[in-house]
């Protein structure tokens, strides 16, 4: 057991736990953040995407002991942001989601892309989201939604 202190969605968390527990289990079971989805448990599908220090990471292959002192943002925290609203609206309006199980992870990856690269071309979007699997949509409308959200973000910020 180990005392681990980190920040989740802006709030400090101190846990006495096995440092080798998967971050996804700590987030879901100890902190009730069930928006973090488990699709594969081996870092292959992206459904458990979270931000660690503002960069996308996969909670199923991170040991909680490795996030000591770091800032973790799950979809529950991310949904407070303006960018989430833009991306989520674009997903809804474009029809970029079906079963929705990949969607929170997809939105985290999309948002991180738009933050880092405000006007991505299609190839950049496909590369940035290549670790997020979706079996329902064929990706077509997800790409459209991310491009749309990035355009809208750019317009708002240049206004």
């Amino acid at each position, binding site marked *: 057991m180990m005392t681990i202190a980190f920040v989740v969605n802006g709030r400090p968390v101190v846990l006495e736990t096995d440092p080798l527990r998967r971050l996804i289990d700590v987030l879901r079971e100890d902190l009730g953040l069930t*928006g*973090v989805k488990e*699709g594969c448990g081996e870092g292959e599908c992206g459904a458990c995407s979270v931000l660690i220090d503002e960069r996308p990471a996969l909670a199923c292959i991170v040991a909680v002991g490795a996030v000591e002192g770091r800032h973790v943002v799950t*979809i529950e925290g991310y949904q407070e942001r303006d960018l989430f609203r833009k991306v989520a609206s674009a997903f809804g*309006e474009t029809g970029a989601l*079906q*079963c929705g199980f990949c969607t929170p992870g997809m939105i985290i990856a999309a948002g991180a892309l738009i933050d880092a690269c405000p006007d991505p071309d299609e190839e950049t979007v496909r590369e940035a989201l290549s670790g997020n*699997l979706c079996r329902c949509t*064929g990706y*077509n409308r997800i790409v459209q939604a991310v491009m749309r959200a990035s355009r809208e973000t750019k317009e708002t910020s240049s206004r």
Partner: protein
Amino acid sequence: MTVRDDAWAKCCGKAGYMDELSFPGMLHVMVVRSPFPRAGIRSVHVPAVASGYYVIDSTDIPGRNICAILRQDFPLLAEDRVSFAGQPILLIAGPERGRILEINDGIRIDYEPEEPVITIEDAEEGRIPPVFGTDNVIASIGFERGDVEKTFIESARVFEDEFRTGYQEHLYLETLRAIAVPEEGRMTVYGPFQIPDIVPVAVSIPLGWNTDRIRARVTTIGGAFGGKMETTTQITCLGALAAYVTQRPCSIVYDREEDITTTSKRHPSRIRIKSGVDQNKRIRAVKMDIDLLGGAYFGSSAVVLDSSVKMATGPYRFENVSVRGRALATNHIMPGATRGFGVVQTTFAIETHMSRVARQLGIDPLDFRLGHVLKQGDRTSTDAVLRNQVKIPEIVKSVDDMSGYRAKRGRQAGSDATVKKGIGIALYSFGAPHTVKGTLRGRPRPLILRRTGSGDVVILTTITELGQGIVMVFREIASRILDIPIERISMDNPDTDRDPSTMGTGASLGVTLFGKSVERAARKLKDRWDEPGEIEVMEDYVEPGYLEWDDKRVVGDAFHTYSWGAVAVEVSVDLLTCEVQVTGVWAAHDIGRPIDDRLAEGQVDGALVQGLGFGLMEVLESAGGILQQGRLRDYAIPTMRDIPAIRQSFVINPYSEGPFGAKSVGEIPTIGAAAALGEAVADALGIEVGRLPITPECLLDLVRAKEASS
């Protein structure tokens, strides 16, 4: 177009999925499975377990040791023998996963391995003792129209081909799971059930209870594609058994490897086609032998085979046809319902065969196929009259306009010595819904529209939302008829205590058959709208009276109607590595008149990519009965980088019996992509591929053979 009502919740990951659900005192359940595909069980040694932990075997089953799928031949927990790798033998239940693992590590099972039946050839040869019955034949069905053998003798040329396709895993992102909660003499089971209606029946058998003591509640489903139909009965029965024994809420979650290696998938196939061509270069006779590789038990192979056989000849008309299909048992998991339902395999076979024949006759493959396409008034292979217009020419024109297929075909070889480009097209059709007389058999499948006192409307049904948007479609239909805003119409996840037993979602029945029930119920409700208080209208489906079926002769209307489609796929092939990259996808479909274009397009996009994955990269192979690509790092499905932007259109052709002219869309776009891919590779390399998926390994063999011969 309205934004789907679940969009925001799904973006937040809080749409009511199983993984948001928890109960006080809930136990985790682990399934102990056979590592052998075929073995006797000599003994089972279970260590002493701590209080609060349980090891459950078949003797703990209070009712019958049966997991009912279509037949009752599959034991819920193995007793003295196992017939596939991954077959459940024991359950371990307890509060902590780590402790459960320790118990698992202490269990010793002594097996006596036997030689397994692995391939279609093993199953038909009979050298190895049969797995199923006396001859491994799980199901067989066939028919003949005209005189095929006589026509072959009279033919100018006869062509023969053999095609093989592999497993395809559904790969819904949410793995299978179930929670069973015992409460006051009843059992409530929660799960992502595609067909909730079958769950109480299935659970009642091992528990030895009446079905009314079992309540199935459907949670928001994280993808299904046919993989959460019959497959959910096993996990749910196991969960219910654990809950019965422990008297605690019990949760079973299959991890990804467990899900890939122990649950159903698309049937591998071997399809042989022989065709006879006359002097005018027309096919006069076709004979198809379809063998699906089944599992160790009956499963749902018979139903899949049924569609394979009835749709085997695709969108074509042949005067003389013989189709014979078998599902053969092997010592593997039971394959089952999978999007495209047995027609993906046959479409690949018939399309590739027709194109090969055309090339050998020196005819353009597309023109050759178009020359054989069914027309209104023609009879299908099962002798059903096509009452509606067949718009394949318009569909092909639309795809050609978008893709430039005819301009590109055969002209893209180019000067690049290491990369070749090619384009291919596939034509296809899918029959849906099945007729009640043909396959569904008759029983009431009602749904209810209830207007509440406040004037809102609730749709009560066990039709399930898998992500495809059926809830939006039903609400849209009711909204149009009742002329009230869609926001005032709701439809929740099914609950078998509350909802009439409609039949769940599968086989592309939802929109055409039950959407029509919604339409009719809404009309009745509208007539009664002025009545005070709550009103309920119950409607059953109605099958058009003109549909006929003779089961014995396999003649008549197997389906209400047909959807039609074509897809063009463009590829570039790296000649050094034989890797195939998809660079363009264009598709057009006749699905009647779509209720909601955006939802329908979403179905097409997703199905096309699922079909391309099947054709291109999804390798799942058995080595001695053990599936080798059980982990997601080894079972590759397309990522966003593997697929280009998709362009598509709908050719409008309203279906008079469908709601607002709609036909089914869920499955048809899956079935042509792999065939078009094969044609594109043939265009690029001049090499014909008879096997799916078209892996670089398999293509390299063909490329080397060609290099050696030139």
